[in-house]
C-alpha cells in the first residue's frame, strides 16, 4: 500500500497555551512494498509521524493518503479497517500486554477486527516461531516472561494480523544483539518475501542503513531529506548537525582513509565488506 504525505502539519493541543507544533509541512511518499526508515534525533517528530500512518493522530492540516483512505476526516468504521491494514507496533510494546495467556494476547487483535479465529489459531505456532519463541509459550502468562520475550509476544500480536503495512517504532530497543538481528531479518523477510510495506522508525543509523531502501530524515518536525542509504552516506558530514551519527563501519573507513591513505570507494560499507577489503590488502602486501 502506498502512503502519501501532502503538506502535513500536526499541532498538539492547538489554540491552547500548551500548543506545540510537532510536524511541519511534511510531503513525501512511502512506496508500496518499500522498506522505509524514518530517522531523526529524539524529539524530531518520529513518533508523531508514525501515528498518522494508521489514524491514531490525524493531521491538523494537509492530508495523508494510505491506499484508498485519506486522512483527516475518516469515520470510525473505515478507521478500524485502516488499522487492520496498517499494523503498528509501538516502542516498548510489552507495556500493552494484559491477557491471561500468550495465546489470548495474540488473538486479542484478530478478535477486535472480527477475523476468523479458528483459522488463525492454527497459525499461532508459526507466528511465535517468526519472533523467536516456540509453541510452549502459548499457554503461559505473559507476565511470567522476560522483558525481551514480552516484547516478542507483543510484536507477534500485531504480526498475526497479517497487515499490508507494518509500522515499527524502535522495535529492537533493549534487545540483545542476537535478538535484534533476528527481528530485523524477520522484517526484511516480510518485506522481500511477503511483499509487506515496512516502515521502521529508529535513531540507529546502523540499522536504517543496513535494512532500508528509503530513508526519511526528520529534523525538528520538518523533512530534512528523503534519500537512499547510499546518498546519505555521501552526505555523512551533514548528519551530525541534525543529531545523527553515521554507522561505525563508515567511521572506520573514513579513519583508514585519513591515516593510511587508503582509497576507499565502496559505499556499502559493512563490517564484513570492510574487513574483506582489509584482508585482501594485507595479503596483497605480503605477496609483494
Amino acid at each position, binding site marked *: 500500500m502506498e502512503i502519501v504525505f501532502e503538506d502535513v502539519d500536526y499541532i*498538539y*493541543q492547538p*489554540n*491552547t*497555551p*500548551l500548543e506545540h507544533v510537532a510536524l511541519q509541512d511534511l510531503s513525501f511518499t512511502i512506496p508500496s512494498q518499500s522498506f522505509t526508515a524514518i530517522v531523526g534525533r529524539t524529539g524530531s517528530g518520529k513518533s508523531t509521524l508514525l*501515528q498518522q500512518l*494508521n489514524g*491514531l493522530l490525524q493531521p491538523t492540516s494537509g492530508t495523508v493518503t494510505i491506499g484508498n483512505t485519506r486522512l483527516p476526516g475518516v469515520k*470510525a468504521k473505515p478507521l*478500524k479497517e485502516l*488499522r*487492520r491494514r496498517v*499494523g*503498528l*507496533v*509501538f516502542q516498548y*510494546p510489552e*507495556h*500493552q*500486554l*494484559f491477557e491471561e495467556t500468550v495465546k489470548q494476547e495474540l488473538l*486479542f*487483535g484478530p*478478535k*477486535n*477486527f472480527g477475523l476468523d479465529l479458528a483459522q488463525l489459531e492454527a497459525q499461532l505456532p508459526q507466528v511465535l516461531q517468526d519472533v523467536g519463541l516456540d509453541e510452549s509459550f502459548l499457554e503461559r502468562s505473559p*507476565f511470567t516472561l522476560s522483558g525481551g520475550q514480552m516484547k516478542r509476544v507483543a510484536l507477534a*500480536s*500485531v504480526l498475526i*494480523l497479517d497487515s499490508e503495512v507494518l509500522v515499527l517504532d524502535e522495535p529492537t530497543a533493549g534487545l540483545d544483539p542476537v535478538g535484534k538481528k533476528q527481528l530485523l531479518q524477520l522484517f526484511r523477510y516480510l518485506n522481500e518475501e511477503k511483499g509487506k510495506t515496512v516502515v521502521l522508525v529508529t535513531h540507529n543509523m546502523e540499522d536504517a542503513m543496513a535494512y532500508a531502501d528509503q530513508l526519511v530524515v526528520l529534523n525538528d518536525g520538518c523533512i530534512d531529506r528523503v534519500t537512499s542509504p547510499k546518498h546519505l552516506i555521501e552526505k555523512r558530514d551533514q548528519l551530525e548537525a541534525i543529531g545523527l551519527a553515521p554507522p561505525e563501519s563508515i567511521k572506520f573507513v573514513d579513519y583508514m582513509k585519513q591515516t593510511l591513505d587508503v582509497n576507499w570507494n565502496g559505499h556499502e560499507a559493512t563490517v564484513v565488506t570492510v574487513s574483506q577489503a582489509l584482508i585482501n590488502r594485507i595479503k596483497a602486501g605480503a605477496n609483494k
Partner: protein
Amino acid sequence: MKQSFILGQYIPRDSFIHRLDPRTKIISLILFVITMFVIDRLFIYSLLYGFVLGCVLLSTIPITYLIKGLKPVWWLVVITFIFHVLFQRDGEALFDVFGFIIYDQGFIQGGEIASRLLLMIVMATLLTLTTPPLAITDAMRWFLAPLTRLGLPINELAIMMAISLRLIPTMTEEMDKISKAQAARGLDYTRGRLRDRLKALLPLLIPLFISAFKRAEALAMAMEARGYQGADHRTSYRQIAFRTMDYIIVCLMTTATVSIYLMTG
C-alpha cells in the same frame, strides 16, 4: 482525551496571580468558598462572578482555554440547574411542563447551587493553573506543620502528595500510550453497548496498574539508593516567602469576607 480536562494542570506564566505566594492563593480560595456558602443574595453572586472574572484576567490565562478545558464541568453545572428547576417545590408556581410544575424558587436555588459549583471549580482550577504542584505541596506542608506536635508525619505526607502530583501527568501519558497501542490492535471503547465498553476498559487498566506498581517500586529503590531516610529535618531548595503583596491580598480578602458576612448575616 489528554487535553480535554485541565483541572490539575499548570501553565507557567509571569502574571500577578502566578507571582503570589501559594499560601496566599490557598487562603484566598478558602475565604472565597466560605463567602460563597454564607451569602444568599443574588446581587452578591454578581460580585463573585466579577471577582472570578478579574482573577482569570489577571492570570493572563485565555478564557477560551478555561471554558473549553472545563467542558465536563459545564455539563454538571447545567444538569444541577435543570434538576433544581424541575424538582424544587418552593415559592410561586410559574408554569407547567409535561406535568412538572415549575416554581420560581427552582430557578433561584438552581442558579445559586450551579453558580457555587461553577465558581468553586473555576477558582480551584485557577489555583492549579497558576501554581506549580510542588509550590502547592510546600504550602500544604506549611499549613499542617503545627500538627507535627501531635505526632502526625507531615513531611512524609507532603512527600507522598508531591510524588502523587508529579505522577499524574506521567500516568496520563502512560494511559494515552496504552490506549493508542490497544487501538492499533483494534480496540474500540468508545462505541458499542455499555457492557462491552466497560469490558474494553480492562485492556487499558491492567497494563496501567502494572506499570504504576513497577514505577512505584523503581522510584522507591531510586530514593533509597540516594540515601532517603524519611523526610524529617530536610531543608528545601525552593523557599516560599510572603511578600508585601501577599500580606495585602490576605488582609483584603479577610476584610471582604467578614464584611460580606456581616452585611448578609
